[in-house]
Structure formats: structure tokens, C-alpha cells
């Protein structure tokens, strides 16, 4: 389950909905990761662009990996502006036993950072500034640069 929201995430509502949806599914572990916008470098918040077609296929591949381990994964992300101390990202794994979920959430969030087609901007002085120094080139990048 992948849901994109306009603006900040309603963390209690989303976590509760996910919990209630799986409360009787016989999963022994529910491990959520909640990302919160921190006050640093004088920013007023963050802003996000998302390219959904590739995000969906990336997420689908992770759903298949989860399924192979008897687990399920849910993710919510913001599009547009998210202010300080609000949340822009929640990922959760449900699995029969805790070890699978603990390891899976780590792998999933790391790959999310490296591969998910989402672009982050700092909101500062009424400008939207691409966070190039914190961004990661997707694996296989650069093929158009040296083909002359």
C-alpha cells in the first residue's frame, strides 16, 4: 500500500488506520518508521516532487520482496510543502516475527533513500531550493554524459 498525500502527513491517523487494518491479520510485529522535518540550517520546512509511475513500480518490487518473507509493507509520503516538526514520510512493515520486520524496514528505507524518484527542496527565505548536497544519483545514472 502506497499513498501520496498533499502536504504534511497526519501521523496518528495513518498509523492507527494501518494498525486497525491488520489488527487481526495474525502479524506478530508492526514496525513503523516516521520521518519528521527537523529545524536545521535555518529552513522553514521541506518540499517534495514525486514521479509516481516509477515510484509505484519501485514500491511494487518491494511488496514482492515482503511477500516472499510473509510480510507486508505500507508507505505514505508527502507531495508539496511540509513544515518544521511535521512528518513527510511513514513506512511500516508487518511480519509474523519481529526479526524479519526489523531487518526489512532497514533495507527498505535505505533503498528508498537511494532509489525512490522523489526530489527534496529546502524552504528558506521564501524560496524552494533543491537539496542537491543530500541527494543520491540513482544507480546507473550518467549514461547520457559521455556518449559523444
Amino acid at each position, binding site marked *: 500500500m502506497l499513498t501520496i498525500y498533499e502536504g504534511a502527513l497526519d501521523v496518528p491517523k495513518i498509523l492507527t488506520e494501518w494498525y486497525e487494518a491488520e489488527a487481526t491479520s495474525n502479524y506478530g510485529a508492526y514496525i513503523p518508521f516516521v520521518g519528521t522535518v527537523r529545524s536545521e540550517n535555518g529552513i522553514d520546512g521541506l518540499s517534495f516532487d514525486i514521479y509516481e509511475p516509477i515510484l509505484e513500480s519501485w514500491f511494487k518490487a518491494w511488496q514482492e520482496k515482503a511477500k516472499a518473507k510473509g510480510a507486508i509493507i505500507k508507505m505514505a509520503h508527502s507531495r508539496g510543502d511540509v513544515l518544521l516538526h511535521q512528518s513527510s514520510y511513514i513506512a511500516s512493515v508487518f511480519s509474523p516475527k519481529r526479526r524479519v520486520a526489523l531487518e526489512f524496514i532497514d533495507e527498505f528505507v535505505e533503498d528508498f533513500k537511494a532509489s525512490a524518484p522523489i526530489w527534496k527542496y529546502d524552504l528558506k527565505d521564501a524560496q524552494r531550493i533543491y537539496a542537491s548536497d543530500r541527494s543520491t544519483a540513482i*544507480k546507473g545514472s550518467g549514461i547520457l554524459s559521455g556518449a559523444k
Partner: protein
Amino acid sequence: MVRVEFLGPIQKEALELDINNLSELATILQEDTEMTEWLKNCAVAINDTLVSSLEAPLKDGDKISLLPPVCGG
């Protein structure tokens, strides 16, 4: 014709080009000085599937996307 879209922070209008493969696209974009830095770290997708080779053939109506470095969360 194929359509070339520039995603995220790349401030560039989409292009409609008559090309047969990604090598031709590389040649065209390398002549655009605004794209020089982006080309070094952009991933490329054809019809929303990431590709790793310039040899991938293109056909009429294909959509090519350039994806600059990402940072979700």
C-alpha cells in the same frame, strides 16, 4: 517522434525529438550547456522503466524521462 521529460529540479521544458536511440539523445543534450552537469548524474527511463544502456531502441511515441539525484523522506 519521442517525448523527453526532465523531472524534479531540472528546469527544462519537455522536448519532442525524431531520434532512434539514446545515443542520439545524448549527442543532442550534450550540446545544451544547461544540461552538462545534470547529464553526469541523471538516470534515464524509457516508458517509466529505468535503462542502463544507450543501445535501447526507441520507437514512435516513446516517453523518455531524465531523473536527477533523489532524496525522499
